[in-house]
């Protein structure tokens, strides 16, 4: 079942009503378990996939229980290693084949196996293992672990929910349904997510596809529109697809009393790559920060305090390289991770150099300068767009630039003809001008918007009206998509 579809929308609505009709904690938990398992059944295509999925799930639980019974540092390291190795095997990474000299044949063994959400199961299991070892984990059993790992609202692509937060809601399940405004907000998030994923993202994908056709047209390539489309549109497509899914997850989880964490915070307004990873896929970057970067950097700082800063730069690179490799099984994703690792390391080195060079007061002035802040956002945004070329299907960064250069060499006239003032280029210049003016007056603009929002009456009826309008629009979009026999949009991050 696709999360951006009519059956899911109806299913969630029905399940939320039945869930809140259940009188006590026990029946509610049991009902949620049935819903989670029923959703999982729609995601696993064949018995081989079931076998692998169940095996991996039971392995993580078994390892957790083993560590609880026999806690030791060596056991913890060995257990994490075992889980990661099984995960790498199941994911069928290309680069492992190269490292093992071609003696790697999981493709034959795992033929037909499609696994859903195992990355997230691994992230959550490792977090539980480490927290349990350090005495930070709330009590758990097979029942709560099963629902934590298989919760239908976070199964496909997170967000990575920490167990203690889940357990708090799992314990409070006997409370009555939330207030009307809270429930309406959850429905609002879910519907906004469906519109982002089902309407905005497919439109952007269409633009990206069209740009590809313009760029790769051998007879008359339109270089400017093609390049700009390929370069700028994909990050927005990915954002609306994944942020849409996240909104669905947060809304659906909220209807059952779970406060699923936020995953995005205006990522394209990042000042540098460090800032970007605090705004994009936040739960993943915080997981990597806590369980990869901070753990290793702390060990480094404790042992080699003199070289700790240098060591930190290397570990920042390594952490983002791991994040990149996690995103996909091919070499393009290794390059994606390396580009992000380089970006985040360069940002840290640049910031440290500025602090040294400018002094305390000078650095403050630098940080507060609106011109520099604006320029930093533009530069970071372009770097992000560059790195996302590795994500876009069939094109990676190197081949993108190579192809563009070849096109320019073959038909230099096309570059000039593309520079004609079309509606597209004119519109882009106008949009950039408006953005620049808005940025320069952002304080006044934000104060005005806040004032307008404060003047709006905080009435529940308005919230009802907004949610009903979104419900009508979502219904229309899903119906139109069904009538036109369009495929339901898939979560891009589901593949990772």
């Amino acid at each position, binding site marked *: 079942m696709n999360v951006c579809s009519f059956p899911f929308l109806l299913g969630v609505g029905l399940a939320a009503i039945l869930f809140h009709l259940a009188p006590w904690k026990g029946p509610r938990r049991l009902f949620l378990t049935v819903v989670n398992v029923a959703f999982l059944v729609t995601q696993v295509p064949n018995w081989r996939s079931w076998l692998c999925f169940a095996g991996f799930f039971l392995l993580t639980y078994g390892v957790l229980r083993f560590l609880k019974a026999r806690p030791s540092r060596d056991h913890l390291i060995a257990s994490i290693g075992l889980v990661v190795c099984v995960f790498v095997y199941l994911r069928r990474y290309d680069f492992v084949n190269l490292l093992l000299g071609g003696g790697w044949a999981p493709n034959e063994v795992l033929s037909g196996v499609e696994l859903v959400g195992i990355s997230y199961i691994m992230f959550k299991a490792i977090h539980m293992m480490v927290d349990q070892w*350090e005495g930070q984990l709330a009590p758990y059993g097979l029942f709560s672990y099963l629902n934590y790992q298989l919760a239908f609202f976070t199964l496909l692509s997170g967000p990575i929910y920490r167990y*203690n937060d889940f357990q708090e809601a799992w314990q409070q399940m006997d409370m009555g349904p939330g207030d009307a405004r809270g429930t309406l907000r959850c429905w609002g998030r879910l519907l906004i997510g469906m519109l982002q994923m089902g309407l905005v993202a497919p439109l952007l994908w269409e633009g990206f596809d069209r740009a590809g056709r313009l760029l790769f047209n051998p007879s008359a390539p339109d270089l400017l529109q093609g390049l700009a489309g390929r370069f700028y549109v994909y990050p927005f497509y990915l954002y609306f697809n994944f942020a849409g899914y996240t909104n669905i997850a947060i809304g659906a989880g909220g209807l059952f009393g779970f406060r699923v964490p936020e995953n995005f915070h205006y990522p394209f307004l990042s000042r540098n790559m460090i800032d970007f990873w605090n705004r994009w896929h936040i739960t993943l970057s915080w997981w990597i920060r*806590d369980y990869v970067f*901070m753990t290793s950097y*702390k060990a480094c700082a404790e042992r080699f305090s003199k070289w700790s*800063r240098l060591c930190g730069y290397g570990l920042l690179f390594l952490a983002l390289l791991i994040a990149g490799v996690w995103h996909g099984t091919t070499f393009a994703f290794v390059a994606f991770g390396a580009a992000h690792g380089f970006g985040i390391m360069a940002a840290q080195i640049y910031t440290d150099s500025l602090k040294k060079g400018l002094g305390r007061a000078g650095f403050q002035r630098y940080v507060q300068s609106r011109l520099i802040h604006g320029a930093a956002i533009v530069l970071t945004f372009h770097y992000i767009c560059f790195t996302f070329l590795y994500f876009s299907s069939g094109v990676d960064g190197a081949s993108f630039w190579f192809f563009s250069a070849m096109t320019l060499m073959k038909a230099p006239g096309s570059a000039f003809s593309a520079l004609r003032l079309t509606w597209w280029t004119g519109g882009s210049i106008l949009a950039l001008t408006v953005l620049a003016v808005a940025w320069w007056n952002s304080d006044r603009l934000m104060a005005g918007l806040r004032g307008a929002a404060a003047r709006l009456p905080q009435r529940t009826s308005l919230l009802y009206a907004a949610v009903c309008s979104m419900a009508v629009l979502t219904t229309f979009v899903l119906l139109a998509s069904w009538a036109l026999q369009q495929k339901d949009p898939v979560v891009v991050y589901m593949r990772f």
Partner: protein
Amino acid sequence: MSEELRAQVQQVFRDVFDDPSLVLRDEMASEDIEGWDSLTHINLIVAVERKLGIKFATAEIGRTKEPGQNVGSFLRMIEAKVAAKQGVA
């Protein structure tokens, strides 16, 4: 939190952030102290651990830098750990 413990933690902050004039206030967040980035955060944790003989868990280290957390919550966590250590001793 005792004045003595607060003064000890403040001295660690001053050393790590290289700012002898730094005065800790409970409502201060990481953005209010110049240079409190991920790397310096770990240096701070390691320095506090060394000074007070306590240990922070992985989840605690990350949590202290999340939105909504401030110097006050960090100091309370330190106080609880020092109290637990003295209780054990």
